[in-house]
């Protein structure tokens, strides 16, 4: 049994439309990079984070399938699903597998292949995170749910949509420096507001697009990690918390309680406060979700997130560098892979390998990954090991 779990290898594919690559090829590509970095050939267990392969790719049993694809028949392997937090939920299970002493080296990969389907099928598959017989049935979409949150937030806190969307603008600015990003170019607030409405008031450039992608990590106990590499990154906390699935049956529609619960537990486990965090990744299916995340993670008071974002305090060189390689909006959001991308990117930051997007002296990183509208939150806190 191990006291700490470390990341010793990371890898990912570009996020985008990979017409020529199947689900299994994407997984293979990201995983081989992570294994090569870790200099490991075989692992004891594989965890696959994926949301929609049954619906979009007509394939289940991804644990065994990916073990086979990786040439590792025999190993322990399962798929973990928690809607679009599937990737981070898979990391959480991998973390416990090592903590329990049942596995010494684990590969975790998040993978999603959405561009095989028509956009309306993708919207439909996305809505399976919500209550099928009630919320889905109204005909609403994820963007629509975010639109109602945005409207309520604007009303309660006197915010304007043009302020809130600065979250998306920050994502795009950061993605411009990330070769793996789906949309590696900057945009302006005006461009967001001029883009077509998707679910009023939400505009196209304030939403995520269907994407393919895979990201992978190799984990092992810290004692082993120190032998394997010079720059292990330690998982100081891995916490998953849930909340009511229907956002309109929670105590407050504008509070992500699962994020609050997971974050508080994670800060306590890691022995830090929000002030100690150097770099943050949050789950912004639209800007409003990014704003709520910053509030509920304790970085800024409830109702002040929009101002914090509009004032540029989440920029790379500012107080709280957030979504430093593009976030869900611009790195892209291949559902079950997204939570793993966040941890790959934080690892780059903590190792000092983020190139032009490097946050100076980054020691502690936090990732918040969400399933649906906050029914699941997974919080990971990573620390550079010295």
């Amino acid at each position, binding site marked *: 049994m191990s006291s700490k779990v470390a990341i010793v290898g990371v890898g990912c594919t570009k996020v985008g439309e990979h017409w020529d690559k199947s689900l299994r090829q994407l997984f293979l590509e990201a995983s081989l990079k992570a294994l090569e970095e870790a200099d490991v050939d075989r692992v004891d267990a594989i965890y696959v984070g994926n949301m929609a392969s049954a619906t979009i790719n007509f394939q289940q049993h991804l644990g065994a399938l990916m073990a086979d694809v990786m040439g590792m028949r025999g190993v322990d392997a399962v798929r973990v699903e928690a809607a679009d937090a599937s990737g981070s939920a898979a990391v959480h299970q991998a973390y416990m597998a090592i903590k329990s002493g049942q596995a010494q080296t684990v590969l975790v990969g998040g993978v999603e292949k959405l561009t095989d389907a028509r956009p*309306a099928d993708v919207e439909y598959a*996305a809505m399976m995170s919500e209550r099928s017989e*009630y919320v889905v*049935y109204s005909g*609403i979409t994820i963007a*629509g749910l975010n639109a*109602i949150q945005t409207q309520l937030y604007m*009303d309660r806190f006197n915010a304007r949509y043009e302020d809130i969307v600065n979250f998306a603008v920050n994502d795009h600015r950061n993605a411009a420096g990330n070769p793996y990003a789906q949309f590696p170019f900057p945009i302006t607030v005006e461009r967001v507001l001029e883009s077509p409405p998707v679910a009023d008031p939400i505009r196209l450039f304030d939403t995520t697009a269907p994407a393919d992608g895979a990201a992978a990590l190799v984990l092992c106990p810290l004692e082993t990690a120190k032998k394997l590499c010079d720059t292990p990154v330690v998982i100081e906390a891995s916490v998953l918390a849930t909340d009511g699935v229907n956002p*309109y*049956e929670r105590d407050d529609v504008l509070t992500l309680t699962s994020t609050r619960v997971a974050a508080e537990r994670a800060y306590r486990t890691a022995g830090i406060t929000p002030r100690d965090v150097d770099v943050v990744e949050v789950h912004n299916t639209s800007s409003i979700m990014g704003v709520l995340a910053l509030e509920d993670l304790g970085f800024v008071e409830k109702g002040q997130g929009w101002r914090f974002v509009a004032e540029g305090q989440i920029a790379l060189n500012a107080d709280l560098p957030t979504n430093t390689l593009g976030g869900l909006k611009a790195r892209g959001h291949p559902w079950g892979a997204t939570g793993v991308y966040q941890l790959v990117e934080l690892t780059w930051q903590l190792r000092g390998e983020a190139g032009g997007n490097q946050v100076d002296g980054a020691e502690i990183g936090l990732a918040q990954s969400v399933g649906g509208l906050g029914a699941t939150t997974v919080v990971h806190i990573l620390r550079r090991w010295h």
Partner: protein
Amino acid sequence: MSAPAVRREIPYRYRLMGTKCLNCGALFHPPQRICPKCGSKDLVEEELAWRGRLVAYTVIRRPPKGYEDYKPYIVGLIELKDGKLILAQIVDCDIEEVRPGLKLEATFRRIREDGKSGIIEYGYKFRPVIEWNWQKKPNPEK
């Protein structure tokens, strides 16, 4: 949805049945059997209020599969008279006319058709309440 699944949900969709916690008073729709607010298992079925007001809304312009024929359509968050929040389509109302505060009432409509199974699903949507002006009502006796 499949035929048995549609049939199973009829009371909750056709009669707006929810459940109410006898311990803390919270209302749930869809029905909960254990209260997620206080943990009580003492819940009873209760019909929700059929009228309420619009709290916030959106216009869906990129719908999911099954809803393409209806676009653009309005989906609103409605506060019912009993305090329950519910999400539903707003019908019989132009996009230009919808606004928070609008008084609404439940109505039963076609929701979607499953091309494959041929099942047509019905359920609640909400429409503006037409306030009769009794003063101006034509009097057939006169």
